[in-house]
């Protein structure tokens, strides 16, 4: 009984049966199908009707009719006419009985049926045949009451269309004919205002997105103006366009049709399979787009499902996801518990092997989910407790796959513990255990855990898990320093060698990518062919033969979905996501190791290939990386305009990533332009972001104090800058952030250089150099070499040769991978070396110095780095003076003056502000 009743016969299904009959018995049709393709198209349409899951409710007759008009072409009116007349002719229970026994006739396999020519015999085992059989069966098990209900419902179903002068509005109209009624309705008609609500919500969100900056930066007119400007200039068209692509096209926004659940029972849920598919897709959408999915819209749909199918517990899970991504902790906890109380963890988890599961409860999955939820909300302690419990219960229940996943979750947790969810801009929000004692041993523990988890996943053949474990491993290798102790000596005095292993990172990343060739056997069939049907139905508006879609298609997302689905085996989204993150990690790795082009290429690959499948926060991260790159290589103008586009696109999601980026860029630029006050404010802002309510983000904190030190340096407060850098160094050392220390040492060297104590700076530079060497930070090493050279140079002209050799050694790296600033610095330093070398004479080969200086000043002008630019022009002016080229000298001097003036009165004019 349960199996039979799992498929209820509804008016819509009766309509589909009628269509099937038309499809199968084409001779009865007076105008037969003009072409095979037309016939096939009808078949495809019927197939899609039975499979698609774009909505939870079965379409009404009018929807069906309008779709038929789309696909039917010339045959459309005839199809519609036949359908409506056939359905509306069912007026007594006996008509229904006859109808369904006729339906049995178009199934093949029974001998009694007289086969007409041209008849398409439906294979009883084909999808459509099965559908038909289920309908017939569902009808046959109906009680008489059931038949009566069906008949009434068919009546209502038809009436709405046939009295087409007043379709659905009918109820509404006569319902609110008097104002008292509407008055009473007003009180609970929040649904009515829903559309407004949504718009308002969006506006609010938009405001919030922008105000968050201005709120914190309650100071300078400059920034406020800047932010205002961004808002004003925003192109409304691009706004609209971005909404279309980014505002999650998969989430179904209920229009008027689901505003109120019809009290008269004409609303039917689709089949269980379709609703599950819908829910799965929505879950994907929520996980992908995070907070940008409108909370209330979806909540409304869920409530509707709950009302129509109270035993469909998966709805609670969706409630959970929805509240999770809207940061509603209490609702999330409630719904999570509710879901697992009802379902006992059996419903709807793809990694539970369907055959092996003997319906025993799987509460360990509840623990796993709860743990991840706590992790998401930034409660690492609770998360750890819950996950430990999950490990124990999975062991007791011998649920190996859950154990593997739990271990992976623990790894993830312990590698990110202490840093808040707002991950740093570098993407690798790594900071070792802040509160857990000796961190080296914890790191080792994590390493063991990772290895263990990887082994387990491999033995269980959980391919996705294996891949993501490889990713985690790569991340670990990237950020952790391997401590190598000689085997024989123990104790604290044993010499330690620290190093990183880029080779391991590469290896792990490569292993991760193997996933794509292995996933083939794992396909979630529910998702794929249903998705195809859904996409097909959605694209009905396209002209005939629309499977060959053209690029003019506006909603790019659908197009991709269709293309993917049209392939024989599409790649599951989760696989794509893992692959995507491997590229993201690659980009971060190359960033760390100092190869700008490779980092950029990987980020670009991610941005072009994986944005559809990845979460929007990851996408925002990639955009942030690319924009950073842009700022370093093309200047701020480009970067800010790109940032504006990105901000528009990621309106509500992951604002923090873009916010941090914006602050970083503003800070850099302020430093270059000499706006020290502004720089300090931005820097303080960053500091505030680092220790938000959710917890301290070590990565961001380090960044903020580093920038603080640099600001102080720029303000020539050397001892303060040095003090800040020192304390920062201590902090990093304490938390075992060795890799970061290389940067800090370099900064210290820089401070000493600027303060004129070159001798003091030398050891720092050397230390930084050796750090870079052992951690394989090539670009940083080049820049440390440059600083070293500058230090030598400032010790006197007799060291110029040595400095020049150093610079020449670093130049290939700097010119290949360095940003504008580094390149310019290197060139100026090079020419300074030449100039201070006593054996060099300007008159012999002036181009050796002039050429680098020219290039440097060009680059610096792009960057608006006034101080350095002034230096470059100054040198040029002197050289021209020596050479007697007075005209050029004047020109250079004028430029020099301009930059010095700009540096001294930074508030003067800011072309970029106007541009933004």
């Amino acid at each position, binding site marked *: 009984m349960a199996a039979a009743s799992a498929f209820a016969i509804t008016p819509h299904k009766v309509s589909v049966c009628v269509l099937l009959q038309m499809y199968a018995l084409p001779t009865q049709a007076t105008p037969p199908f003009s072409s095979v393709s037309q016939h096939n198209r009808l078949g495809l349409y019927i197939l899609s009707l039975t499979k698609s899951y774009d909505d939870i409710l079965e379409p009404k007759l009018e929807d069906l009719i309008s779709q038929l008009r789309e696909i039917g072409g010339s045959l459309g009116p005839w199809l519609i006419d036949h359908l409506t007349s056939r359905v509306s002719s069912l007026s007594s229970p006996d008509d229904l009985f006859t109808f369904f026994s006729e339906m049995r006739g178009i199934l093949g396999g029974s001998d009694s049926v007289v086969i007409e020519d041209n008849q398409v015999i439906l294979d009883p085992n084909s999808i459509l045949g099965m559908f038909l059989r289920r309908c017939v069966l569902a009808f046959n098990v109906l009680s008489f*009451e059931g038949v009566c209900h069906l008949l009434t419902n068919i009546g209502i179903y038809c009436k709405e269309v046939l009295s087409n002068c007043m379709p659905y509005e009918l109820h509404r109209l006569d319902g609110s004919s008097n104002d008292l009624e509407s008055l009473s309705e007003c009180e609970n008609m929040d649904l009515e205002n829903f559309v407004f609500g949504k718009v308002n919500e969006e506006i609010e969100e938009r405001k919030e997105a922008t105000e968050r900056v201005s709120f914190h930066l309650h100071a300078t007119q400059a920034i406020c103006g800047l932010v205002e400007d961004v808002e004003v200039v925003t192109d409304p068209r691009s706004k609209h366009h971005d909404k279309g692509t980014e505002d999650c096209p998969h989430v179904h926004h209920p229009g008027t049709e689901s505003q109120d659940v019809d009290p008269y029972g004409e609303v039917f849920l689709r089949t269980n399979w379709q609703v599950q598919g819908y829910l799965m897709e929505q879950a994907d959408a929520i996980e992908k787009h995070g907070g940008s999915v409108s909370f209330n819209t979806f909540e409304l749909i869920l409530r509707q499902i709950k009302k129509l199918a109270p035993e*469909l517990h998966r709805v609670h899970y969706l409630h959970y996801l929805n509240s999770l991504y809207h940061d509603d902790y209490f609702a999330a906890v409630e719904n999570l518990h509710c879901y697992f109380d009802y379902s006992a963890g059996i419903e709807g988890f793809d990694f539970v092997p369907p055959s092996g599961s003997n319906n025993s409860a799987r509460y360990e999955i509840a623990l796993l989910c709860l743990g991840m939820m706590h992790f998401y909300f930034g409660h690492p302690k609770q998360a750890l407790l*819950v996950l430990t419990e999950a490990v124990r219960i999975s062991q007791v229940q011998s649920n190996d796959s859950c154990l593997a996943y739990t271990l992976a979750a623990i790894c993830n947790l312990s590698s990110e513990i202490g840093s808040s969810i707002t991950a740093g801009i570098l993407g690798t929000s790594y900071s070792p255990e802040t509160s857990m004692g000796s961190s080296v041993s914890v790191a080792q523990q994590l390493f063991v855990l990772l290895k263990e988890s990887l082994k387990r996943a491999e033995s269980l053949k959980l391919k996705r898990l294996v891949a993501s474990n490889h990713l985690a491993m790569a991340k670990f290798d990237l950020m952790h320093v391997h401590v190598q102790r000689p085997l024989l000596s123990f104790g604290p005095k044993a010499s330690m060698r620290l190093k990183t292993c880029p080779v391991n990172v590469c290896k792990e990343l490569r292993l991760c990518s193997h996933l794509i060739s292995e996933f083939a056997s794992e396909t979630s069939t529910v998702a794929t062919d249903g998705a195809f049907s859904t996409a097909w139905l959605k694209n009905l508006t396209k002209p005939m033969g629309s499977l060959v879609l053209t690029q003019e298609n506006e909603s790019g997302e659908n197009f991709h979905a269709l293309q993917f689905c049209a392939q024989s085996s599409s790649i599951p989204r989760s696989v794509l996501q893992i692959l995507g993150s491997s590229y993201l990690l690659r980009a971060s790795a190359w960033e760390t190791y100092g190869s700008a082009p490779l980092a950029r290429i990987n980020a670009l690959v991610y941005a072009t290939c994986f944005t559809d499948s990845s979460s929007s926060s990851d996408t925002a991260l990639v955009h942030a990386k690319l924009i950073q790159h842009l700022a370093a290589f093309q200047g701020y103008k480009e970067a800010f305009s790109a940032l504006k586009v990105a901000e528009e696109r990621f309106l509500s999601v992951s604002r923090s990533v873009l916010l941090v980026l914006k602050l970083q860029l503003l800070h850099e630029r302020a430093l270059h332009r000499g706006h020290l006050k502004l720089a300090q404010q931005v820097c303080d802002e960053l500091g505030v972001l680092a220790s938000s309510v959710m917890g301290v983000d070590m990565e961001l904190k380090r960044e903020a104090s580093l920038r603080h030190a640099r600001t102080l340096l720029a303000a020539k407060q050397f001892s303060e800058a040095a003090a800040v850098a020192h304390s920062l160094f201590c902090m990093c050392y304490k938390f075992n952030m060795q890799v970061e220390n290389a940067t800090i040492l370099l900064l210290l060297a820089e401070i000493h250089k600027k303060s004129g104590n070159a001798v003091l700076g030398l050891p720092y530079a050397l230390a930084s150099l050796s750090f870079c060497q052992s951690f394989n930070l090539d670009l940083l090493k080049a820049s440390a070499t440059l600083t070293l050279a500058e230090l030598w140079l400032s010790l006197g002209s007799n060291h110029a040769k040595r400095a020049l050799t150093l610079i020449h050694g670093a130049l290939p790296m700097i010119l290949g991978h360095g940003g504008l600033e580094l390149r310019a610095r290197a060139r100026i330093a090079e020419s300074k070396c030449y100039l201070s070398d006593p054996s060099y004479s300007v008159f012999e080969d002036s181009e050796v110095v002039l050429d680098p200086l020219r290039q440097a000043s060009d680059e610096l002008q792009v960057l608006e780095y006034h101080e350095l630019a002034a230096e470059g022009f100054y040198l040029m002016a002197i050289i021209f003076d020596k050479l007697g080229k007075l005209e050029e000298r004047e020109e250079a001097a004028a430029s020099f003056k301009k930059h010095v003036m700009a540096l001294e009165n930074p508030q003067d004019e800011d072309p970029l502000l106007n541009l933004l």
Partner: protein
Amino acid sequence: MSSRESCRSELRTAIRQLNDRCLYSASKWAAEQLVGIEQDPAKFTPSNTRFQRGSSSIRRRFHTNDVTSTPPAGVSYVSTPVMEEDEVVDGDFYLLAKSYFDCREYRRAAHVLQDQTGKKATFLRCYALYLAGEKRKEEEMIELEGPLGKSDAVNREVASLERELSILRKNGIIDPFGLYLYGLVLIEKGNQNLARTVLMESVNSYPWNWSAWSELQSLCTTIEILNSLTLSNHWMKEFFLASAYQELRMHNESLTKYEHLQNTFSFSNYIRAQIAKAQYCLREFEQVEVIFEELLRNDPYRVEDVDMYSNVLYAKECFSALSYLAHRVFMTDKYRPESCCIIGNYYSLKGQHEKSVLYFRRALKLNKNYLSAWTLMGHEYVEMKNTPAAIDAYRRAVDINPRDYRAWYGLGQAYEMMGMPFYALHYFKKSVFLQSNDSRLWIAMAQCYETDQLHMLEEAIKCYRRAASCNDREAIALHQLAKLHAELGRSEEAALYYKKDLERMEAEEREGPNMVEALLFLAQHCREQKRFEEAEVYCTRLLDYTGPVSSMI
């Protein structure tokens, strides 16, 4: 409060009017109260007191602090003039319709009244339609059971009724009964705010309709809502407040109200049952038992609220009394959810959990929102070690009423049983939040913290401290507190709690291993503190107990 005589005459008229409008349960309630008013000795006749015997004995036993019936000063009760009927003689059609109605042929009744315009006729027509819709709804609920559970069937008359009644209300030609019906319709439509207003209007103009009061009460889910109501001071309001307080778990307030009401309605079975309910919630089982014994003697065929009595009997493990009760309600009306629940309780007490589940299931079939049956069924499943089913049952109870602390507690227990103490904590926290003066809940939570897996002793101590402060009957908390402090090496605190525990055991004249443990610890502690006399005292007391300890000394 108005005099007994005026109450009586008001009620008599009200019963007639309610009966006239086929509002039977309200009229039943009013009649019960009418009989519950204490007779003046002058008119004392044996037939009148048939339902009032025996009750004085309860009063004697439990009215130690006899409430002298001084109503709170400054409250002036309005005596609403009894409503005048608009037509003195019912029309013939009305009589026919009422007969149809009484035979439960609602649609027919409504049809007969189609063209009648009097207020009474309009009301009866609408009410009949409403009930016809309800009946059809119940039937459809069975018919429409889909693959994923029952989708809520709706009363199809509601929309048209709402339209009609709202017009009537707007035009000011609606009587209090019509307002009551309008309130019902609005509740069905989910428009709670308007429903509250409408029901308030109804009870203010006609206070004797208890059904209206109870609908209003179901809409008062928080004390804020309750306080925001503007109700005229009629004595019926006291009944309403008492029952509302009870629903809001303000048991003591509600008890006071009921005791006050008992001055006038001293023989009301309803009030007695409500008092029993409040006492039950305060876990005064002895009193509940006495009250119910009396009640059933007066009213032997009563089924309402008797399931609570069975719970008490269950808790006291009175096998034969429970079986007798089960037999009696079974003979009275076996298809009442309460009856099924009592039988379920009986089987559960006998340890026949499968059968017990069967009867709870039947109770739920009769009323799927029957809260206590879900919870009790959960308990049975726990006994049967079918934790998933238990969790499911408890969860349904919680979804019906999220303030049911027993079900939350049951959920916690079920998860704890499966070895998921941290997960269970969530549920214990919920239950403790709802019933923060119940030591059992605190102890359960403390035990969760104490488990080997969590081992969060500080939190456990906090919970035990709460438990100890709210009258821990089984005296677990003090002992555990002492033990935990000892474990954490805080011997001063441990000694303090052991001493308290010891005092308590002495006061209650209990002995046992706990006593030995306490004495032993105190003796050792005093010895370490070099307070040898005290240590000696404890040691001597220890000698009274046989076993390894005394031989150790």
